[in-house]
């Protein structure tokens, strides 16, 4: 099986990222599928991001031909649906995770050398910075997303930095970054050097304001 080189992408250096594409499925079902894939974050082995250009997995509906990159694994939309046929209303998180884990095993077997190289990678994590305020639909996915977006608006951050500054779990932060990548509203950037570690419990001006206003507690 031949896979396209993915070194050109901000996520290319991240060995845990897998890409998928959906073809031959109506718009409503495709949108629902993408939403469900975001919820999969942290439950499957890999982080799954949508990429129409380069992908490890093609999820195809009944209307699909042979579209998609030649080397990608193909799975029917129905294989993700807990029930009969292609009714996307029957998409369930557990069923999707189970199917994805099977796919991940197949991909790992198909590309052992790539997996080994990736896991030994010492490339530094790339920081991402917002290039514009994200779409409202994307931000509606979690109460803390506007705050995460604001953090990324102010300075470039890696997933680890976003976790550290937000106090949210890695899966939520990584899933959010994936969504921003899909939406094309972030760009890779050098991590900012001026801000390192949050000064918890400090008595700076902003800490005083936060304390007085009762801000500063987790939104999640």
């Amino acid at each position: 099986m031949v896979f396209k080189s993915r070194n050109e992408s901000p996520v290319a250096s991240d060995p845990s990222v897998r890409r998928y594409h959906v073809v031959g499925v109506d718009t409503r079902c495709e949108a629902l599928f993408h939403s469900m894939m975001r919820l999969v974050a942290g439950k499957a082995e890999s982080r799954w991001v949508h990429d129409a250009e380069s992908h490890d997995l093609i999820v195809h509906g009944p209307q699909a031909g042979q579209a998609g990159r030649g080397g990608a694994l193909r799975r029917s939309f129905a294989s993700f649906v807990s029930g009969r046929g292609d009714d996307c209303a029957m998409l369930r998180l557990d069923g999707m995770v189970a199917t994805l884990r099977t796919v991940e095993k197949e991909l790992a077997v198909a590309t052992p050398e790539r997996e080994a190289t990736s896991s030994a990678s010492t490339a530094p994590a790339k920081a991402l910075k917002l290039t514009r305020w994200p779409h409202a639909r994307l931000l509606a996915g979690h109460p803390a997303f506007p705050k995460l977006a604001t953090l990324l608006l102010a300075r470039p951050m890696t997933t680890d930095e976003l976790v550290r500054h937000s106090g949210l779990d890695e899966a939520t932060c990584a899933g959010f970054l994936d969504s921003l990548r899909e939406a094309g509203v972030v760009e890779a950037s050098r991590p900012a050097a001026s801000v390192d570690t949050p000064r918890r419990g400090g008595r700076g001006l902003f800490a005083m304001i936060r304390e007085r206003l009762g801000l500063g507690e987790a939104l999640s």
Partner: protein
Amino acid sequence: MEHKIVLTGVTGAGKTTAIGAVSEIDPVNTDVRNTDAAVAKPFTTVGLDYGEIRLDGGQRLRLYGTPGQARFEFMWRIVSQGALGLIILVDNSQDAPMEALETYLDGFSDLIERTACVVGIGRQATHPEPGLDDYANRLAERGVLCPVVPVDVRERADVLMLLDLLLTQLEMKTGNIDESF
């Protein structure tokens, strides 16, 4: 030591209400009876709204609400001096809210460039157009990077959210980070 945050927006956008939602003193305002038939409110601000939050060591955070009308632009410049940041309130129920936003982006461009800004869109529930994405698109076209969020200034939590997003930007830009949210 004194610090200040500026709230601006069209007449009726809720600057007075927003300040009152978080101020520790009774907000001081200079409302007078409205004689502008185009504005459906009995009183309007012709000077400044003012509220404050007391901080340690005798410091104060002052909240200034500017008069909404563009003819008071000279006051916008005065009140912007030394401000920590800007909150723009947009009333989606009024005519041409996008143009109103542009007016404030122009009028406070120095402050926005120097500090940070948050845009709060009010009355979206009853007046969904323009949508949040429309505002975000316009900001992107103008090269302005700032949060755009729906807000009900009658809700203290919503006003706090605006302040939170503003503080977050300031903390990240200055490195004065005290704790995660």
